[in-house]
């Protein structure tokens, strides 16, 4: 089973076209294995991205370096998944 321990989902409220472009660059960075749940397409819409824990520091650094504000939407994805799994087990019983 794939573990998502420490992986976070980060929400970015894009404020300018420049920030949008920087996020699009981030999206094309294949080496970081980012999973965009909401893509950077408009300043009207938030961007949600699942960041593996191995690249968390680098991604946050990138956002901070470009003054792109973000919040952590899911702090530890695996915790949510564990809760879901426990609930499913209970339902099966």
């Amino acid at each position: 089973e794939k573990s998502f321990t420490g992986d976070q989902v980060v929400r970015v409220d894009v404020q300018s076209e420049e920030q949008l472009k920087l996020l699009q660059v981030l999206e094309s960075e294949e080496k970081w294995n980012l999973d965009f749940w909401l893509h950077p397409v408009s300043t009207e819409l938030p961007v949600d991205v699942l960041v593996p824990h191995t690249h968390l520091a680098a991604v946050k650094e990138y956002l901070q370096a470009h003054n792109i504000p973000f919040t952590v939407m899911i702090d530890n994805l695996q915790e949510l998944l564990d809760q879901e799994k426990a609930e499913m087990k209970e339902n099966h019983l």
Partner: protein
Amino acid sequence: REHSTRSFNFGAYHRLETIYSWMDTFVAQHSNLVTKLDIGRSYENRPMYVLKFSTGGTKRPAIWIDLGIHSREWVSQATGVWTANKIATDYGTDASLTSLLNTMDIYMLIVANPDGYVVTHTNNRMWRKTRSKNSGYACLGVDPNRNWNAGFGGPGASSYPCSESYHGPSAHSEIEVKNMVNLIQSHGNFKSFISVHSYSQLLMYPYGYTCRGAPHQAELDSVAKAAVQKLSSLYGTSYKVGSICNIIYQASGGSIDWSYDAGIKYSFAFELRDTGRYGFILPADQIIPTASETWLALKHIMEYVRDHPY
């Protein structure tokens, strides 16, 4: 095993075999209305089942509903199970639904990506794509909602096989997509095509592959707005309405663009309630509220289609 649909827990997430086993019980309990069609096999050789709701006739005007083409969007498949049951139990008591089923058929594909769905239960809860092999790459899968023959390979789809939105080597390369296309083309009388996804609460209409308006944009917009008004009346859930390109992002190769260009005017895509701090891990206690509010919008669209033949 769920021995009867009465004891089935609609407020829980279930594995593929449980859903498939429930389908058999469900069909047996509503044999006057529901049949199960085997429309082909997935890449990993799993059957793909469509529930057909019909009161008779041949190739009546029909409504297509598929759910869960992106496997991790679990509330979609769960909503499909609840909705199928709702249709069967309300038939004969709800006058409007009964009149609809007396003139039209409904086809529902509850698990449009069975291989992906199994992976989300066994290996990777966040899996979105199909499971086909990509020659020369270790990464598996194609985004089945970038694989339809509608602006295929255009903006908003990736040519990189490891991307979550990889469009695949060619249009309809994914057997799951091809199975759907074959059924819809061979039937030839679908009047509405509805794809159900979940994340961020949207009701969309074509186009996604281009930002130009669809010829019927005004009508589709007004139908969608009225549908969303009904949806919101239950719990106040807020939805956005618009074309895919305008309210979410440009995305080529999407299912409802294909259906619309194939002449199925009433083509819509839902993004159900699955946002905030849960992402795709929407708690199971929100399945029934989500399905219940979605039903109001679905029913509005289906009634509109019934009342506006073309």
